[in-house]
């Protein structure tokens, strides 16, 4: 099919109706000239990668902290009212910091928050016996497995501050709350269950709000890690070792591999890409 091209022929042009005399499978020199590679590529430094990974570490530590509290309550190593008192105090301090950081805080929102708090305490107390017995009949092994998977779902779908199709705040919070309902059925009394539910609300619902306002998370994360490590060392040596391994994996190996494999990025762009509609937000 390749017909030799005569010298006096019209030059080939990028039009479908022109190019008389050229075979249909003719490939011009201009072929693929519009091809661009990696045009939106921004290299991520190792420091930035570690910074990003520390967000995951932060959430993982919160989960571990919560489970540790469960262990302490379950074994009666700690008085439930002590947990309630100090967690509430920390939450109160957190609320004050949050109020200072927010610009649009006024009497009305404070009133609203107080009302929410009262409603939570009343309904929490009312329903904690129900929640306490809700998953009572399920065997303890099943409960622990379920808790593990729910926490995993929580960590996967958590909003770490990046827009992605996988991010789902609703799913992530629901999974964490469901895990705490599962665990609370193993505790001795309804009050302990209420304390654990309160603690999980503080960890998984209120704490992310505070984290979003506070800029230098890098102060919170090390202290959380340190606390978790110390307590895990006292509770179980195996868990301590596993936690250290996951820290190294998440905050060392993963960022290192991410930075290393960046050079393999090969993203192709060209005129066939779908145009992006920008100016239609406010119709």
């Amino acid at each position, binding site marked *: 099919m390749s017909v030799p091209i005569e010298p006096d022929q019209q030059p080939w042009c990028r039009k*479908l*109706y022109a190019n008389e005399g050229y075979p249909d*499978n003719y*490939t011009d020199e201009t072929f693929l000239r519009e091809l661009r590679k990696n045009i939106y590529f921004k290299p991520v430094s190792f420091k930035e990668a570690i910074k990003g990974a520390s967000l995951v570490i932060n959430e993982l530590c919160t989960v571990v902290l919560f489970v540790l509290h469960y262990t302490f309550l379950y074994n009666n190593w700690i008085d439930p009212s002590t947990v309630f008192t100090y967690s509430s105090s920390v939450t109160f301090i957190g609320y004050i910091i949050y109020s200072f950081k927010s610009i649009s805080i006024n009497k009305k929102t404070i009133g609203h928050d107080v009302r929410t708090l009262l409603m939570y305490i009343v309904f929490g107390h009312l329903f904690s016996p129900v929640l306490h017995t809700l998953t009572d009949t399920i065997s303890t092994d099943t409960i622990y497995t379920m808790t593990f998977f729910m926490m995993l779902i929580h960590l996967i779908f958590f909003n770490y501050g990046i827009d992605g199709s996988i991010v789902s705040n609703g799913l992530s919070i629901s999974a964490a709350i469901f895990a705490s309902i599962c665990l609370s059925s193993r505790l001795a009394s309804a009050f302990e269950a209420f304390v654990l539910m309160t603690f999980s609300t503080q960890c998984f619902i209120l704490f992310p709000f505070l984290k979003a306002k506070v800029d230098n998370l890098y102060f919170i994360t090390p202290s959380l890690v340190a606390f978790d490590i110390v307590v895990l060392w006292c509770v179980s040596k195996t868990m301590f070792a596993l936690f250290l391994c996951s820290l190294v994996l998440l905050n060392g190996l993963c960022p290192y591999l991410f930075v290393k494999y960046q050079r393999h990025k090969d993203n192709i*762009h*060209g*005129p*066939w890409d779908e*145009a992006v*509609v920008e100016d239609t937000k406010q119709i």
Partner: protein
Amino acid sequence: MVVTVCMVSDFFYPNMGGVEEHIYNLSQCLMEKGYKVVVITHNYSNNVGVRYLTNLLKVYYIPIKVFYNQCVLPTMISSIPIIRYIFVREQIQIVHGHSAFSALAHEAMLIGNLLGLKTIFTDHSLFGFADASAVITNKFLQITLAGCDHCICVSHIGKENTVLRAGFEKCSQRVSVIPNAVDAIHFMPRPELRSKDKIVIVVVSRLVYRKGVDLLAKIMVEICEKYPQTAFLIAGDGPKRWLLEEVRERKGLQHRITLVGMLQHSEVVHVLNRGHIFLNTSLTEAYCMAIVEAASCGLKVVSTNVGGIPEVLPDDLIYLREPNVSSLIDGLEIAINDLENGKCICPYECNMTIRKLYNWENIAKRTVKVYDSVIITGPTKPIHVQLKRYLSSYVWPFLLVVSLVHLILKLLEIIVPCDSIDKVKNVYNKDLKKTNCT
């Protein structure tokens, strides 16, 4: 000797669209040239079994369940017996698959390859490379194209895209560019139907995100506010129709913007002939049949400058603009001003130009050239050569699929030998006409 061609695609009449039009018109022209053509597609509600269309175009609607978006589930093996039976019965020599979305076309081409038939593939669409779904679809396309003898694209940009997706950089002579065409006699201008006191802007497209409905919603409001003499006529339906209806309602433009909904392809010409300007807001497009149809009816065409659109029409028939609101409005304003100042080409002249540039006769001639080139490429390749060809896509597990299909075909050869299958007697179109006359 009569060459028999089998067109395979999930998309065919009664479904409506560019691919369907292409297969139908190409088949008609090939039959006119003395080729024997059959079409294989999956069943459409009532259409199951064998049907005959105009000029005895034989269509097999094979009974396979539709899985997603008018496509069958690519099981690779479950439809082997029926497809093999049809290939043998019709004595097919060339399998011509259409559209990268069509799972049926991919399956039939694989079976055709292993039966030693020539395979040709026409790609009608463009794909990105960025997201996960594109990566998977591109891998599938790469596998199919590794086995096919020749590939046809509908525009130069489509060729670049396909070559990149299929990893064909070294053998781009295996890819031809043959555009679509329109039936310019059907899309005849009728200026007497146009409104005398208003300027009507026509839009004919499916109302989906890829066609730029979000752009259209904003443009129509701004144009209606700025030019009281304009009106919009929008044909087509889709998931984004609510957006246009809502905008129309909120701005109180019910008397200016008409939504006529879904149309049969034969009715499109009546809508086009009521307008002065055609607006196309597509965000990506391999060829864009709609603008050619509009130009054929003598309308001024304003379009986004994306994909293969700049290759389609000569500069004096189209106003190309960037895909954003302000640029497209600018294009429409120039078109409106040109109309009011009488600066326009005679509609009949437009029609004659389109008739010269794109006609199915010419497209069929060029397709026949491709058929001729693959028919002479020697005898069937043995299975190990075939496997090696599929290996070039670097998807090792797919070799297992190919081998399994090969084994099933061998097994079928024992259960239902080729000799036991009745061959269809060749009834030539032209002979039939003669008998009809006498």
